[in-house]
């Protein structure tokens, strides 16, 4: 085994271990944090950085263009879909009052002055009219 492939293996192992460590921190954060928004903050650590690190490690270890392209595809899907799902979940969480609003530092939906405490500040335009 040449020196170059040993270096590549060490780099790949470091990437894989860092990604696995991020998955563990996501689990710890999900158990410890108080409400939906902060749990989502913890849960998205492996969604972006962890998956990117693991995919990089896998692409180094797996020789072959097909596998590397597919790992790149997975990473691109994660980067595209994580903001969309996080936005939808956090919007519904705010409107269903699963957010500890006393822990928020900035609450623009409350300050928007909707008359009912801001819970309906971002109701969809095509939804049924509320009052």
């Amino acid at each position, binding site marked *: 085994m040449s020196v170059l492939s040993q270096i590549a293996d060490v780099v790949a192992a470091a990437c894989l271990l860092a990604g696995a460590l991020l998955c563990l921190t996501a689990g710890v954060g999900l158990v410890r944090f108080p409400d939906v928004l902060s749990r989502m903050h913890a849960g998205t650590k492996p969604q972006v950085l962890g998956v990117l690190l693991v995919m990089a490690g896998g692409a180094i270890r797996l020789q072959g263009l097909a596998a590397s392209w597919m790992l790149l595809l997975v990473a691109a899907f994660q980067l595209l879909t994580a903001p969309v799902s996080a936005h939808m979940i956090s919007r519904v969480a705010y409107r269903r009052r699963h*957010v500890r609003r006393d822990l928020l530092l900035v609450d623009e939906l409350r300050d928007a002055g909707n008359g009912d405490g801001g819970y309906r500040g971002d109701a969809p335009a095509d939804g049924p009219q509320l009052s």
Partner: protein
Amino acid sequence: MIVVAVIAHTLLGSGALLTLLRLARGPSLLDRVVATDTLLVIIAASLAVHAALSRDATVVPVLVVVSLLAFVGSVSIARYVGGMLLRSAADDGRDAGLPPAAEEREVRG
């Protein structure tokens, strides 16, 4: 590489167990959605770790399926919960049939 495999699978497994704990305990549906999302990401990461450490590219197409499944699942459940909210809105700004708000629940203990 065996040492790396043991350490990585231990980290991933304990993360998945903690996520399962939140999935079982989660007070609201959205907590469970977040936990499911994270659990699927951890499953995808462990599949990738297995593929990388055994130099076996068989499970790589499964990664695409799992990552798309996480997205579709969380978005559809979020839409479903949002529809429940719109239909159950009451007149006084409170929503009928909803659990108390997170901060009110915290005050009452």
